[in-house]
């Protein structure tokens, strides 16, 4: 975000002063999330979809499932590909264009959380080994930016996958036939992303955009159902003490449990 030096300094002071009293400008405590809403089945032409609203951050994920050709080095696995576009309408300072390094990092980190948790059993997404597999594309459009895109995007991707219905494909000679049946994806786990930032030495959960503008560094940790950490990413040009990293790990496990429950409720019934 482009920053005016003077405005930034004033805002920083405000934020830091509040944090000194254990508070944030929007009234939250350091380890509280903003209001999280998850709405599924919003795009009928997608196999699965979810709109996530986290404070004023809003993202829409859509899943498209088709037959595809496996990668040569994983002939026995289906394709699962996460993409993210921060729509230029999502904030005043954005411009249309190919994804920049931040959008690429966003998509790759969200992808990592889904992939490393082994949320989807890609081994069972095979139609004929080496020839035909299921391809699962999850595309995310960020509609409005107000901080913590990593978590909002991750929840939208996970909720869209949890409620997706895939066609059952069968081999028909050399090609593939859609049986017309619809099945849920082979889900094994529900990974949850938890993002934290340090501001003047204080660790806070779920930073807003104005907090991100003054934060020193960011850390995202994903956990799965058993509380194991399955993906991580430090970002931004600051640093953490090792102690802060361990606190972040603990928070990610605790908060992850709460949010997993919310995601499960929002997606119950598929």
């Amino acid at each position: 975000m482009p920053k005016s030096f003077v405005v930034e300094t004033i805002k920083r002071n405000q934020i830091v002063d509040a944090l000194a009293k254990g508070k944030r400008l929007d009234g939250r405590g350091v380890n509280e999330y903003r209001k999280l809403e998850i709405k599924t089945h919003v795009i009928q032409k997608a196999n699965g979809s979810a709109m996530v609203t986290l404070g004023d951050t809003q993202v829409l994920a859509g899943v498209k499932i088709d037959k595809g050709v496996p990668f040569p080095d994983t002939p026995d696995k289906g394709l699962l590909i996460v993409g993210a576009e921060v729509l230029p309408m999502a904030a005043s300072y954005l411009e249309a264009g190919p994804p920049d390094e931040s959008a690429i990092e966003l998509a790759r980190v969200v992808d990592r959380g889904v992939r490393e948790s082994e949320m989807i059993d890609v081994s069972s997404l095979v139609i004929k080994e080496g020839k035909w597999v299921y391809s699962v594309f999850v595309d995310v459009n960020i509609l409005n930016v107000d901080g913590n895109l990593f978590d909002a995007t991750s929840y939208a991707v996970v909720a869209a996958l949890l409620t997706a219905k895939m066609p059952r494909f069968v081999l028909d000679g050399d090609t593939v036939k859609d049986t017309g049946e619809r099945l849920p994806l082979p889900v094994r786990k529900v990974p949850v992303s938890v993002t934290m930032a340090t501001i003047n030495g204080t660790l806070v959960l779920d930073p807003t955009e104005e907090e991100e503008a003054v934060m020193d560094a960011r850390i995202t940790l994903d956990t799965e159902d058993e509380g194991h950490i399955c993906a991580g990413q430090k970002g931004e040009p600051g640093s953490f003490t090792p102690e802060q990293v361990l606190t972040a790990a603990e928070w990610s496990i605790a908060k992850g449990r709460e949010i997993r429950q919310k995601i499960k409720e929002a997606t119950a019934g598929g």
Partner: protein
Amino acid sequence: MTEEKRRLIDENGIRTDGRRWDELRPLKIEVGVVKNADGSALIEWGKNKIIAAVYGPKEMHPKHLELADRAFLKCRYHMAPFSVEERKNPAPSRREIEISKVIREALQPALFLEDYPRTAIQVYVEVLQSDGGSRVAGVTASALALADAGINMRDLVVGCAVGKVDGKVVLDLNDIEDKEGSGDMPFTFMPNLNQVTLLQMDGLFTLDEFKQAVELGKAGGMKVYQAQREALLKRYFDGAAPDSSAPAAEMMEA
């Protein structure tokens, strides 16, 4: 347009989705849905779900393209990868580039761009789900987003497509009619100034059918105009304060 494969209008004059020849698909519009934008609107029309958002007037980038006597109007029409049956590559296609141009040119006649010299006004049209007539729905939503952004306007712009199905000129094609019908004419105009601002056409129309199509497009557009006005009234006088945006999630039908 390919040859027609089945009857799209039955013996009672009823179309595949139950409409008569001059009826619109269900239409729902909400103004003020993108918090950060200066103006925005969500239109749900048939299966179309389209958000238009406007930023500006704002500084022009790159500087050397700014216009001394008016605002530079920019428009991007874009489809989400999941908005259509087959996943769409997110990079802009030639079709999207052409539609971005015709939408911009459909909106420009309604704007007092001369009131904003050296600035840029940016219109984003994002198709979240696509159905027949997405470009005219995009124009309709964009006109509202421009009004919501407080841009000075001569008139709104409304759109409605007209098509040819089973040899008949009918209003507002749905997806199947668009694919299997024998002609399509997206059409937008300024309802008070009675000026056509977008017209495209494919298929085969006789001169008479072409005339009917223009008439029908205007009649259909006037109904859309009604919905536009209601959406604006709801936004500005119906309780909700102008500065509060309802997140798109709350409005989209699950």
